[in-house]
């Protein structure tokens, strides 16, 4: 009964989405207020329908309803309840239902919080979001119905891929989808602006919070995915430039560019056409990410679908949305007169540079990701493009980006001079140089990690210089500076925090450049020296889990005979699905990770891989700080959008100060 209800809700959502995509748009074109106001209730109803479908599926998973094919294929009664529930989106069909539900949340948010929007703009935005919903609901209903029944029901399910039975992977997809789908909103705003033929500061003020929110969620989603790969795959790395990882990095890069160019639209009413184009591209790349992951074009744990019909369907959707929006862009963009010119050396100029570099990096990653696919398609030759390509192609572009990242926020709008900016950054430059030389010396002349340390410190120092300059440290009394710091707009704090977070992540990357590993075969009782400690293998024993059996090693880490850590890496064997997974043991003190993996056992010895990962936790701490910066900036936006009058007053006060 519940699955049928869910299926019905999905069909209902599709019907509502068809109405949502047409009625408000017609209303906006005919300036009919009654039709336009239908958009908001339709969006809310569509969201409720999607949510019912989603929770119906979750219910089927929770009670392990083996009459539902999807549950049979991806779940098992022996699975812990948490993973039964997260298993709802741990498969192709369920994750698409999550996708449309998140889209529903965004539509409902535009409907609920968008009352201050011009009604025609709101109607058009909701309409475009409805069109996206229609496509994806049709995709679910036609090619991947999650509520399909099977009769007679098999005794139990086949189990979920054990790699996916993990808390990191439970929260990774929803965060990523919130990011991807958030760009659907900026896309809808861009398309609505193209239809209206008008982009103004108010538009920028609306696009910015959405792109910020999407970017923050995407940042968290990517970093949790990377963290998962770090502790679950047991390869000791955190980013493999795998096409699936790149698929999430591409919209992140384009979204970061969008986020910055939207500031220029809001403050200076310039870069409008470019911002609209970026909004289209960010969503196109999100769709591309969905296509690459969902179509099974790539082989990895992410590619659940291997049905070509699905790939073709998503490709068709991608083609319709991207080609349609770009055609609209080509047709309407020339009508939008560019205004607001500026000097190359200015805040706007720095943001243009940021956009240019982010987009160049994005293009390089895109080419590297898609080239093997196209080459295989065209010539049948199989190649792979691995980390060396991405590292050598993106690092040179990242360096000027990082240099500009610290200097840009210190530049005034309209027209700036380079020298005063550099003057305010001199101490940051001094620290950076000192760190570079020190790192070079300490790491034994390893240039790349030293550059990384310098870049990270430069960003953190630059962010500190930005805040210090705004509150007038050194120019005014401390109490005065404190008051100014409290009065500083949250967006300024958010930007500085996000930039510093990027710096911390880069320090983590640089630290991982100095990571060391050791592979040893040890008999029980044997020990080895590594990373300044003695590692003793006490023994390997069997262990029973709820739905797996495991071989667990006990390793004691000793510092001059004193026990520092006891680590228990294991290998799990899952009888349902007959697969094995590696469970790493990680001990961290937030400066370095000690990381141990157990390999196979032979001749009474166990092969162990030990890693000493310097600054590894900073990778994820930094990216969470980045997302936090986004959230702080967002809390400022909301106030401003709600109270434009107050904003004007603040601006005047700011201009006087």
């Amino acid at each position: 009964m519940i699955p049928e209800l869910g299926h019905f809700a999905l069909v209902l959502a599709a019907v509502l989405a068809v109405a949502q995509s047409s009625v408000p748009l017609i209303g906006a074109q005919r300036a009919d207020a009654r039709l336009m106001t239908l958009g908001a209730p339709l969006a809310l109803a569509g969201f409720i329908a999607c949510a019912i479908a989603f929770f119906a599926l979750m219910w089927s998973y929770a009670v392990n309803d083996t009459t539902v094919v999807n549950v049979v294929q991806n779940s098992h009664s022996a699975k812990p309840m948490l993973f039964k529930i997260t298993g709802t989106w741990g498969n192709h069909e369920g994750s698409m239902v999550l996708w449309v539900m998140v889209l529903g949340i965004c539509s409902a948010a535009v409907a609920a919080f968008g009352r201050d929007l011009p009604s025609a703009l709101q109607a058009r935005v909701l309409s475009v979001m409805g069109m996206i919903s229609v496509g994806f609901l049709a995709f679910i209903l036609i090619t991947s119905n999650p509520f399909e029944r099977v009769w007679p029901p098999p005794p139990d399910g086949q189990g979920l891929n054990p790699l996916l039975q993990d808390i990191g992977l439970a929260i990774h997809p929803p965060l990523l989808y919130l990011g991807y789908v958030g760009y659907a909103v900026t896309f809808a705003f861009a398309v609505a602006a193209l239809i209206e033929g008008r982009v103004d500061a108010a538009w920028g003020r609306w696009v910015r919070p959405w792109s910020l929110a999407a970017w923050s969620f995407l940042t968290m989603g990517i970093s949790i995915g990377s963290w998962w790969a770090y502790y679950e795959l047991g390869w000791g790395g955190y980013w493999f430039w795998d096409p699936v990882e790149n698929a999430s990095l591409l919209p992140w890069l384009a979204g970061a560019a969008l986020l910055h160019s939207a500031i220029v639209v809001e403050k200076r009413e310039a870069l409008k056409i470019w911002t609209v184009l970026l909004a289209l591209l960010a969503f196109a790349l999100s769709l591309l990410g969905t296509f690459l992951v969902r179509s099974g074009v790539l082989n990895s744990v992410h590619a659940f679908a291997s049905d070509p019909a699905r790939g073709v369907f998503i490709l068709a959707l991608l083609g319709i949305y991207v080609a349609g929006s770009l055609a609209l862009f080509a047709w309407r963009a020339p009508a939008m007169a560019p205004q607001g010119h500026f000097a190359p050396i200015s805040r706007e100029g720095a943001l243009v540079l940021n956009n240019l570099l982010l987009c160049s990096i994005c293009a390089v990653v895109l080419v590297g990701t898609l080239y093997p696919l196209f080459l295989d398609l065209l010539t049948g030759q199989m190649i792979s493009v691995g980390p060396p390509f991405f590292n050598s192609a993106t690092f040179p572009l990242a360096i000027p980006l990082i240099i500009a990242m610290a200097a840009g926020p210190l530049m005034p709008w309209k027209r700036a001079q380079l020298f005063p900016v550099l003057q305010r950054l001199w101490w940051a430059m001094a620290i950076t140089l000192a760190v570079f030389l020190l790192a070079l010396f300490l790491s034994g002349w390893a240039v790349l990690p030293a550059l990384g340390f310098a870049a990270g410190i430069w960003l953190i120092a630059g962010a500190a210089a930005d805040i210090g300059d705004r509150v007038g440290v050194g120019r005014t009394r401390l109490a005065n500076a404190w008051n100014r710091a409290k009065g500083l707009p949250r967006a300024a704090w958010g930007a500085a925090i996000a930039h510093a977070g990027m710096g911390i992540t880069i320090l983590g990357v640089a630290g991982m450049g100095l990571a060391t590993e050791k592979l040893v075969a040890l008999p029980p009782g044997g020990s080895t020296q590594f990373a300044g400690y003695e590692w003793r293998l006490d023994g390997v024993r069997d262990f029973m889990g709820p739905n797996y059996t495991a071989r667990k090693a006990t390793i004691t880490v000793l510092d001059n005979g004193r026990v520092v850590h006891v680590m228990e890496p294991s290998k799990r064997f899952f009888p349902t699905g007959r697969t094995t997974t590696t469970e790493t043991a990680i001990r961290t003190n937030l400066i370095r990770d000690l990381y141990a993996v157990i390999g196979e056992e032979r001749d009474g010895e166990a092969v162990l891989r030990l890693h000493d990962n310097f600054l590894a936790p900073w990778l994820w701490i930094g990216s969470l700080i980045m997302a936090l910066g986004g959230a702080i900036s967002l809390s400022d936006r909301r106030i401003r959008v709600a109270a434009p009058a107050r904003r004007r007053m603040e601006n005047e006060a700011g201009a006087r100060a």
Partner: protein
Amino acid sequence: MTRKRRRIWILVLCAIGLGSATALTLTAFQDNLVFFRSPTDVLTTEIPPGRAFRLGGLVEEGSVQRQGEYEGRPAIRFRVTDGANAIPVVFTGVLPDLFREGQGVVTQGVMGQDGTFRAREVLARHDETYMPPEVADALKRAGHWNPAQGAAPPPAQWNTLEPGRADAPRRTGS
């Protein structure tokens, strides 16, 4: 600065950005593309020494030796076969969870002087019924398996199977 000059400025900047991105991509491609080769390809084509590539096929049944060391680290030796030919491989590291004899495997590394492939990475991250597409392609090219006929023949027979014999069931089957 006039409006026109500003625009030229921006255009020049864009050209520099795009140009450097293209140049970087092309140079990086030149050095870092990793080609996939089957054991037969390795024996029949010339490979620049020291150039990394991916070697894929099936792990030959009975070929895995989990003893000895290589460059001071515990090593695993096995042979990768596409039915027609087999290449010995040495790997130091923890094998992926799904590495098994008779299963598809993709390894990345360089060819040694002695004809042994030194694998730096062994990729086998898939479930046990999965066949990497490169490996399936290599097997097809070696004439030993047509996936349309169903599952691959048992790997123990790979090196004794005649390509002609492998074709025979297809004719009778269709």
